[in-house]
């Protein structure tokens, strides 16, 4: 029951993040690359201010899957590493936390480019 509840919350929260993005696409001249930069940076800032963790506690993947969640991950990593390792931690913490996502994107991206060919759009 509580898994179902979590699922619904994840669905709705994730949907809301996307709706905001869609509004930005429709109403402003921002390209998708710029919107994504905005999202990731917003995630970093909200994470640093402690405002993002409550969203994750509430909606789980609904807050971690959108790109803001990636920003939160980077911020959390940098802040925690700064506390334990000082200035060096500030530099390494973010990238270390995001390493899984970045490596996966690079690796699978390269593989896909080797295996697949781009197709004509309909």
């Amino acid at each position, binding site marked *: 029951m509580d898994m179902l509840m979590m699922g619904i919350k994840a669905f709705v929260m994730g949907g809301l993040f996307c709706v905001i993005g869609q509004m930005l696409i429709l109403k402003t001249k921002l390209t998708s690359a710029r*919107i994504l930069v905005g999202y990731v940076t917003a995630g970093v800032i909200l994470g640093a201010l402690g405002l993002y963790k409550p969203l994750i506690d509430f909606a789980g993947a609904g807050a971690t899957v*959108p790109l803001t969640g990636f920003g939160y991950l980077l911020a959390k990593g940098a802040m925690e590493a700064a506390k334990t390792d000082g200035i060096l931690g*500030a530099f390494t913490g973010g990238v270390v936390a995001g390493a899984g996502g970045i490596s996966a994107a690079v690796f699978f991206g390269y593989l896909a480019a080797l295996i697949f060919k781009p197709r004509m759009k309909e």
Partner: protein
Amino acid sequence: MGSEKQVSQAQQDKIQRYKQLVDRLSPKSDMVTGLWRAFWVGGAICLLGQALTEFFSRVLLWGATSAATATSICLIFLSALLTGLGVYDKIGKYAGAGSIVPITGFSNSVVAPAMEFRREGLVMGVGAKLFTLSGPVLVYGICSSIIVGLIAFVMEVL
């Protein structure tokens, strides 16, 4: 000198009036449908992410951070596969931000240019183009995390 300024002003007016004309005659896209589609596709992707996280933490009994990282990697893999198969662009056309905002959109933005520029070789084609669209995300994400880390360090010291 004076007439030069006048010409420029007349040109400015012309540009303004044209912009108004363009806005008046512009076709409007259907907002509500677009928002709904972004909502449900984005929500569905997050729901999938939630299911994956539950699997990793409850079935495989991994810790919270590992489960989250593994979820990201799975979604990235899935998106890369769908992009390679030529399916993700169809999802994107339908859902707009619903497919761009989740981490799957990030993966799609890495795979698409890499596939496209393969004709230019594996080093400068695939290798370099992996980051044409996703590079800014990494740059701004990492830079802002460093700044945040430094601020955290300073506040810790104080």
